[in-house]
C-alpha cells in the first residue's frame, strides 16, 4: 500500500516501526488478542480495538474507527463482532471479515467450553473475583483514555464539541437509547451542513490524503 514517511509520532510510539498492510491473517491475530483480553463485553472492547487497529497498526484513522462504531451500534448483534465485520471488510474484503470475526469469537468460544467442562464454579473463585476487581478500574481508565484520543481526533470545532455534550446529556440523564442518539446526531449533521459547502473532512475518505495535524495520523501520504 503506502509507505509511511518518517515523522514524529509522540503518543503510543513504542511499537511504531513501519506500516504493515492488513491481511486476513493479521486481522485474525489482532481480533484474537482483542477477544482474549476484553472482559465485560460491549464498549469495554473498544480501547483494545482502537489500540490495535488505529494506534498500533495505523490501519484505520479515528474517524473511520468512529464510523465503524456508529454502524456497529446501529446494527443488531455483539458490538465486537460487528466491528470485526466492518473493519475486516474495509481492510481486507470478505476474507478479512471472516478472519476478523473468527478471531473475535474463538477465544470466548474455547474459554467458555473449558469453563463449562471443568470450572463451573469459576465465578465464585476468590482469586478470579479478586483479579477482576482489580481489572475493572483499569478498564475504566482504558475507556477514558480512548474517549480522550478519539475525541481529540474527531471533534474538530466548537459545533462538534457542543454536539458531543448534547449527546452526553441525552445519554446519561435523559437515558435515551444510543440508536436514537445516533439518528438525532445524523439529522443534526445534515441540517448544520446543508447550508455549507464542505464538511470538516474531505470526501476523499477512502483515497486517504491525510492531514498531519494529529500525532496519530497514519503518516504523510498523498
Amino acid at each position, binding site marked *: 500500500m503506502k509507505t509511511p514517511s518518517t515523522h514524529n509520532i509522540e503518543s503510543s*510510539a513504542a511499537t511504531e516501526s513501519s506500516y504493515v498492510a492488513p491481511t486476513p491473517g493479521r486481522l485474525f491475530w489482532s481480533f484474537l488478542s482483542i477477544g*482474549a483480553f476484553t472482559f465485560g463485553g460491549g464498549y469495554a472492547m473498544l480501547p483494545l480495538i482502537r489500540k490495535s487497529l488505529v494506534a498500533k497498526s495505523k490501519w484505520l484513522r479515528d474517524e473511520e474507527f468512529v464510523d465503524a462504531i456508529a454502524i*456497529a451500534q446501529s*446494527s443488531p448483534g*455483539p458490538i465486537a463482532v460487528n466491528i470485526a465485520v*466492518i473493519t475486516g471488510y474495509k481492510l481486507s474484503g470478505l476474507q478479512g471479515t471472516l478472519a476478523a470475526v473468527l478471531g473475535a469469537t474463538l477465544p470466548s*468460544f474455547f474459554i467458555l467450553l473449558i469453563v463449562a467442562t471443568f470450572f463451573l464454579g469459576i465465578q465464585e473463585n476468590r482469586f478470579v473475583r479478586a*483479579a477482576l476487581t482489580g481489572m475493572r478500574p483499569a*478498564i475504566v481508565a482504558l475507556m477514558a483514555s480512548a474517549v480522550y484520543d478519539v475525541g481529540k481526533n474527531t471533534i474538530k470545532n466548537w459545533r462538534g464539541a457542543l454536539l458531543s455534550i448534547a*449527546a452526553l446529556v441525552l445519554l446519561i440523564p435523559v437515558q435515551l437509547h444510543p440508536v436514537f442518539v445516533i439518528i438525532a446526531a445524523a439529522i443534526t449533521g445534515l441540517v448544520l451542513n446543508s447550508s455549507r459547502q464542505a464538511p470538516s473532512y474531505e470526501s476523499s475518505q477512502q483515497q486517504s490524503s491525510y492531514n498531519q495535524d494529529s500525532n496519530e495520523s497514519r503518516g504523510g501520504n498523498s
Partner: protein
Amino acid sequence: MIYTQLFLTFFKIGLFSFGGGYAMLPLIQKEIVTNNSWLNLSQFVDVVAISQVTPGPIAINAATFVGYKMAGIFGSAAATLGVVTPSLIVVLSLTLLFLKYNTLDTVQAAFTGIRPAVVALIAAATWGIMPSSIQSVSSLAISVGAFIAIRRFHLDPIVTLLLAAGLGTVLYS
C-alpha cells in the same frame, strides 16, 4: 433437532438485540429461560456471572455455554454460529452501502454529526461502568494509576489489564 433449534434461537437473539454487551441480556434471558426453558433463572444468573469473569462478547459466551449444556461441543458451535450470522449479513450489507455512498456530501454531513455523538457514547459507557468498577480508595488508585501508565508511559492496554489483575489478586483475595 436440537442443533437447528439452538442455531435458530441464537440467530433470533443476534438479529433482534441491539447495543451489544449487557444490552443483549434481556432478550437472551427471554429466549433461553422463558421461551425454551433451556436454563432456569439461577442457571442464567450463573451464565452472566461466568461471562463477567471470562473474556469476549457476552452474547458469544452465553451462546457457547447454553449450546454446550444442551448438546455438547456441536451444540456450542451451532449456537455461536447462530448468534454471529445475523451480524455477518446485516452489518456486511450496511458496510457495503456505507463504503459505496460515504463519499456523498449528504452522508459526510450526517457523519460529521454522528462522530461527536459516538465520542459521547463511549464516554457514557465509561461513566456507566464507573460505579460498579470503582468502589474503594484502592480501586480508584488502580484506575488513576492505569490512566497515567497508559497516557504517560504508553503502557500496552493488555499489559495494563494483566498488571491490574495481578494487583487485584494481591489486594482483594
